[in-house]
């Protein structure tokens, strides 16, 4: 019964050992993972707001010329939610968001009122935060199908176009 190990199996064993060793070695030489602490990118110098540009005449037309310090209002597309339509309007001076107003938030039912009160400020703060970090778009875990999260994303994207 004590037959010698068949050659092919011996080769397999050697190959597997070498492969395992290579794996260990290659694991040692892989670049280090960088470690840091979680920090939130937030507007710098909140207490010292950027100097306002000379107040130009408000333009009624949205312009894609972002470098000019022209005040313009960008209205987000209405998002149809199960609670009603959500829509925001962004006022920009040059590339800066000056303010965000709610064009439409549902408020005709008890639950809607509650959600509007939460969602309204949330929409405004997220868009304002993101612009301060000069971001075109935000990657995150899938936004819920809830219309509020959607309109929030809509406001963000439009604000940075």
């Amino acid at each position, binding site marked *: 019964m004590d037959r010698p190990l068949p050659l092919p199996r011996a080769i397999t064993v050697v190959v597997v050992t070498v492969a395992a060793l290579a794996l260990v070695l290659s694991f040692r030489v*892989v*670049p*280090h*993972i*960088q*470690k*840091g*602490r*979680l*920090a*939130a*990118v*937030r507007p710098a110098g909140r207490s010292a707001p950027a100097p306002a540009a000379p107040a130009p005449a408000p333009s009624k037309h*949205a312009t*894609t010329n972002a470098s000019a310090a022209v005040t313009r209002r*960008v209205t*987000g*597309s209405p*998002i*149809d939610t199960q609670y009603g339509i959500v829509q925001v309007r962004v006022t920009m001076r040059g590339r800066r968001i000056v303010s965000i107003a709610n064009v439409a938030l549902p408020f005709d039912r008890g639950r809607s009122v509650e959600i509007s009160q939460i969602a309204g400020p*949330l929409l405004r*703060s*997220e868009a304002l*935060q*993101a612009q301060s*970090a*000069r*971001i*075109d*778009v*935000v*990657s*995150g*875990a*899938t*936004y*819920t*199908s809830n*219309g509020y*999260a*959607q*309109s*929030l*994303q*809509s406001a963000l*994207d*439009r604000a940075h*176009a």
Partner: protein
Amino acid sequence: MPDVREVMGTAVGVDVRWHGPDAAAATEAVFAWLHHVDATFSTYRAGSDVRRLERGDVALAECSPDVARVLRRCETLRAETGGWFDVRARGRLDPSALVKGWSVERGARLLDERGIRRYCINAGGDVRVGDGPAPGEAWRVGIRHPGDAAAVAAVVELRDGAVATSGAYERGAHVLDPHTRRAPSGVLSTTVVGPDLGTADAYSTAAFAMGREGITWLLGLPGFAGMAIHDDGTVVSTPGFDALRVS
């Protein structure tokens, strides 16, 4: 300004920086394609190919050829990730974790085919960009702060690439460890940057499901980079990610 619409159960923004006459038509084509994908792959619509296939009402051959294509890719990804990416992790057929990224990737190709190169598509937090928004510029992609919807945890500059993030802060814990069927612990979010959004999306799902080991796994994937945020506030990232990071 991106055109933002509701499709595939989320908000999709298509931002085309192209002032030719074809830009609007191209954007329409992208949305038409995504609606078609939703009708085919939706796990919510009883009449979708995926739901009918799952019920046994139709055979795979009777479905759109894209269904077989996607399921084959899912199977490859399951093998590539050692079972961590599993479209049956919840016990039923749900290829959504690949479909969103895959369909946006194909949508981006619709723009490329029209010669439109400057674009940014955001499908509910999964991002695919082409050339920068303007000559000499790159798209600045923020990675959402997991604990604060009003902030980002990092910013990367990207041209012609994809960013996908999986995490437990939206939709509850929708990624499960396919081995334990439980939500992974120790990690709040995992972000993957790569050349194609379908794969980046699947890899971010798999890496997130792996918990804290996910980032080490990502390190071994050529062409992909990543960042994970642990629940103790530690941020770990691969050198490829740090090379793109500007904030």
